[in-house]
């Protein structure tokens, strides 16, 4: 097994002592099959126990290990070191406040996610004795792609619009609003529109498309937002040009 010495720079920040974050460099003997997360774990285990970072599954499922790797938002457990040069720079996800080292504060995202009501709001009340909600494969297909989101927030770190206008609801939360809007069992679109069809919602998006490019799960949040823009525009025309069409 081949080993390679990689210089790993980590943006460090200790809220108790530091005024601002600063880069610290480590020389790490890396194995061929390692991912970036392995290198950071090696640093923590063998070089510097004070380095803080989040991870859990080590298999691109939990969504907690997102970082900027050479300026690009990435899951550190999915970023193979063999795809990088001998020197890499790791920073906490862009656009989020840094709690400590590579750990960022996600409260803002959680709050926004909550606002779009990311759960089924049943179209009609049904009791257990009425039986299950049936869904055809085609109905499932309509929203399946948007269920794949793992809330890793790489898309927020990639979105310049979120960086410039922090009130923007942002890609993943909107993709999830779309996911539930498209669900045949759901009747909550009108409630979600109060958040989605606003200046902080779809109309803040200028379709940079960065979110979809960095998404590790091919959710394509940018596409979801554009689809919601079109649907919201159709709503507007219906309401103003065909007021009788309103239920």
């Amino acid at each position, binding site marked *: 097994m081949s080993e390679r010495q990689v210089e790993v720079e980590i943006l460090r920040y200790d*809220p*108790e002592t530091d005024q601002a974050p600063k880069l610290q460099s480590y020389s790490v003997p890396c194995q061929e099959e390692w991912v970036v997360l392995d290198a950071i774990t090696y640093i923590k285990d063998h070089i510097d126990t004070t380095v803080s970072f989040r991870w859990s599954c080590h298999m691109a499922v939990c969504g907690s290990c997102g970082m900027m790797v050479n300026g690009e938002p990435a899951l550190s457990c999915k970023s193979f070191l063999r795809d990088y040069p001998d020197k890499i720079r790791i920073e906490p996800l*862009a656009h989020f406040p840094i709690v400590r080292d590579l750990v960022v*504060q996600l409260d803002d995202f959680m709050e926004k996610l909550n606002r779009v009501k990311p759960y089924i709001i049943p179209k009609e009340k049904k009791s257990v004795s009425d039986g299950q909600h049936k869904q055809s494969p085609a109905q499932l*297909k309509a929203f399946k792609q948007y269920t794949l989101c793992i809330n890793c927030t790489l898309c927020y770190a990639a979105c310049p619009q979120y960086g*410039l206008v922090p009130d923007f609801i942002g890609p993943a939360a909107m993709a999830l609003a779309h996911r539930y809007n498209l669900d045949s069992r759901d009747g909550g679109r009108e409630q979600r529109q109060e958040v989605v069809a606003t200046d902080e919602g779809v109309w803040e998006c*200028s379709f940079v*498309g*960065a979110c979809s490019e960095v998404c590790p799960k091919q959710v394509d949040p940018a596409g979801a937002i554009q689809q919601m823009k*079109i649907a919201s525009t159709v709503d507007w025309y219906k309401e103003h040009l065909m007021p009788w069409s309103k239920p």
Partner: protein
Amino acid sequence: MSGKAYIREMPKTTWWLSHSRYRRYVAREVTCIPIGIYTAVLIWGLMRLSQGAAAWEGFIEALNSPLSILFHLVAFVFAVVHTISWFNVTPSAMRVQIGEDFAPGAVIIGAHYTGWVVVSLIVLFMAGV
């Protein structure tokens, strides 16, 4: 948690220089400026038309100047680039589901190009070309 979370400010005017992805986005947005100017020229022409034959002749003459021809060439190239860049992203913005499948991206993009050609032909026909 003691201490304060650190907020990294984004440079308000130069942020887009930091990544090729952002530069590409700004380039796409900038292509709409000549298109906007072209539209203003069109509206100006309509106004001159409403002012009678002499005003209209003057407008046509101004259009024939080398500077105007150069501008229209630039505006045309930018309009084509702008259009293509938008057509290319239509498959994710307008999904068409048929049964359990989505219409392939090439079909959706192709439909846009077809619409473009048809509208252009109608305009050319009406212009008597």
